[in-house]
């Protein structure tokens, strides 16, 4: 018989070390995948994890991928700390791209310096708007936010689909399902000429810093943590749980919307169907791998961004499908949940 017992005294140190353990286990078991494919694990890892960032272009790409992941995951950490499982960041990201991108298309002749700030604002509003729907459903009808936020993701993707094949289709686009490019005033400035790394990085750093302050110094952060630990204690303290649900959904939706707008006004430059390689879902892994800690999220976003780049290089040089990147992301999450479980519970066989 297998016995599972709650540990009376589980370690805080191991709580913060377990992401590292999970990464090492991922590498170890990942090497078997390469072995089965008849590839040398060492060479493969080099191509997967080292060669993608061995030049300035690669490093810039790492930040291009890490930026949306970090911004979304930072937003999600507000929900997750509050024990609210917003799974619909991908949909909120899409809505942010539609709202913000829509502004860019509406003023496509504009050269005003206010165009980009307006797009950014609407991006955040779009994401926040999409996130208030599951918040409203949860507080009014007690629906499960995991289901509603996930389902709304597909609704958002269809709305984007409708716009890019319908009213917003580029007349000069040979019938392809994409919009006109945004005007230059609506494009996100890059940090270095010739590289795609953009000012979204600054936003990620600022959001990280603000989140750190909010979690550790403010009453609002305190309320989130209390509600996350125990809703009864939160009621005892007199906190309004329903309001907290709204605030956290709005914050995380706004962050996702911001990330979506940065994608379309940054690297992509227009609206089309596949604006995000599942950043909204992958950011869930990023948030937990970073232990919902703002600084940890920055680090984990870089690591997970590397799996995206590695997968592209692996496809190119090792001739294996880029889905290997998702396999690695899945392995990391699996081992992280496993190490957390073993840290919390003692398993014995008798």
């Amino acid at each position, binding site marked *: 018989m297998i016995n599972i017992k709650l540990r009376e005294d589980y370690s805080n140190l191991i709580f913060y070390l377990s992401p590292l353990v999970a990464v090492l286990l991922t590498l170890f078991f990942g090497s078997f995948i390469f072995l089965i494919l008849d590839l040398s694990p060492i060479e493969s890892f080099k191509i997967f994890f080292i060669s993608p960032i061995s030049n300035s272009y690669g490093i810039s790409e790492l930040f291009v991928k890490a930026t949306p992941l970090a911004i979304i995951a930072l937003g999600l950490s507000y929900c997750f700390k509050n024990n609210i499982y917003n799974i619909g960041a991908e949909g909120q990201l899409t809505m942010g791209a539609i709202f913000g991108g829509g502004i860019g298309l509406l003023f496509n002749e504009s050269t005003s310096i206010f165009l980009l700030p307006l797009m950014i604002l609407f991006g955040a509003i779009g994401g926040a708007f999409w996130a208030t729907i599951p918040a409203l459903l949860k507080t009014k009808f007690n629906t499960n936010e995991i289901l509603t936020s996930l389902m709304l993701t597909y609704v958002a993707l269809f709305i984007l689909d409708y716009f890019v094949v319908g009213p917003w289709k580029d007349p000069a686009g040979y019938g392809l399902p994409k919009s006109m490019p945004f005007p230059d005033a609506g494009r996100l400035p890059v940090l270095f000429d010739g590289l795609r790394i953009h000012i979204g990085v600054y936003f990620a750093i600022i959001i990280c810093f603000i989140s750190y302050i909010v979690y550790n110094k403010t*009453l609002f952060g305190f309320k989130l943590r209390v509600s996350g630990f*125990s809703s009864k204690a939160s*009621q*005892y303290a*007199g906190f309004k749980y329903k309001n907290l649900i709204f605030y956290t959904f709005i914050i995380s939706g706004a962050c996702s919307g911001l990330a979506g707008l940065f994608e379309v006004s940054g690297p992509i430059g227009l609206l089309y169907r596949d604006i995000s390689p599942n950043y909204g879902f992958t950011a869930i892994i990023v948030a937990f791998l970073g232990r919902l800690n703002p600084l940890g999220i920055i680090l984990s976003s870089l690591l997970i961004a590397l799996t995206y780049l590695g997968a592209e290089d692996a496809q190119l040089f090792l001739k294996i499908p880029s889905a290997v990147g998702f396999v690695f992301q899945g392995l990391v999450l699996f081992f992280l949940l496993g190490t957390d479980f073993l840290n919390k519970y003692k398993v014995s066989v008798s």
Partner: protein
Amino acid sequence: MQPIVEFQNICKEYPGVVANNNVSFKIIRQSIHAILGENGAGKSTLVKILYGHVKPDYGQIIINSDLATINSPTKAQSLGINMVFQHFSLFESLTVAENLILGMSEKISLNKLKSKSETICNKYGFNLNLNSPISSLSVGQRQSVEIVRSLLNNPKILIMDEPTSVLTPEEINKLFKIIKKLVSDGLTVIFISHKLDEIINLSDHVTIMRNGKVISNLTTKNEDPESLGYKMLGYKVTKTKQINNVNYSENVLSLSNLSSFSQDPFTTNLNKINLNLKKGQIFGIAGVAGNGQKELMEILLNENDFEFNGDIIFKNIKINKLSTFQRKSLSISYVTEQRLGHSAVPEMSLSENILLSMNHKSYFKKGDFINFDRINSYAKDVIKNFNVDTPSFNVKAGKLSGGNLQKFIIGREIMSEPELLILSQPTWGIDAGSEAFIKKSLIELSHRGVSIIIISHDLDELLEVCHNISVLYKGSLSKSLNVENIDITKLGKYMGGLFD
């Protein structure tokens, strides 16, 4: 006489605490053997070892002169050992008979089981309808179900862990009669308690434990409650004496005609509750759990907008609709029954737990930011003034023992200088030292003019601390009795629902 059970050098260590330290003693066949000790003395661990629930680190158990390896409750049952736990494990929505059959290790038809159970019920005087659902049963009846379930296994030894803690005085008398009859029919009963007079009334022998060790093995008839208490605590039991200085002209809290009308079958609806609480008065609400205590606390605290009729007047202000936050801002303080996860967050530090209950005070805030210096120094003061045993205010609340955490929580509320303090089960499950300290603190607080309501199942505690006591029974509140010249028979009648 030959012993039926013999413990030999039982040792069990948990991280940070030695629960059993070289425990050795014998239990005589066909006797009532009490194990007496404070909370945390190691009684429960010892009987759990006997029941195969916990594995000892060292030592052995001899049953009927044979060495026994008891590695699971199933093994214990096959040796004739059964246990009635303090907390019941019954399925609320199933009937008594269905619950009984679930506990059977052998295959038996429901009808056969029913007739077998009827026989047991009739023989020992358990008043049970085998076809009623558990949810309709009183706590005492539920306990009867647990006992009948054990008896169906034809045990030789029956362990009872604090069986009286949830019962009314009348139910306790009945239980004791049953236990005595069981023993005269050949059973050996191991009875765990920390109530001195019960042990004197019931047991033949008593083993006193303190800090995991056996302090002494006694024959009960040579002892009295004072001598047992002295040996249990290691010092003389001193009862704090309540001094009457209530200002009867000044009303602090009035409840008038409080009634609730929930459809939920698991709640007890309150029925026209009236209460006037004076300045400096400690008012006890006695009664067995499940008679409306939870609902009354719910209305007084207002965490969930629980619906009710009637009025709550606090110092001439009607507070019916005020939220928990607003009520706290009017200087009403609360200590809930559940410590971990309600009045304290176990994962948070002690100073963060100060803020948990004090976040309505601007003193602890700088705008939207937390004033850490102030919550830390407040936590330090609570730790110092209320003898909380902890290395620092950064320790997580969950690391403290029950008694220490309760002292911290009550200290936190007292130091905020409330005008009204409402507590539910303030000394439930904590050690005697902390219990005495908390009682003393509450009495001192009332001397400073603070009014206090204590909702508790522990009648002794209420008699010791309160000026007045009322009994809550099936949602109705009895007249209040003055504790100083209390009529115990009247109180007993009230406990059983016989109001004037």
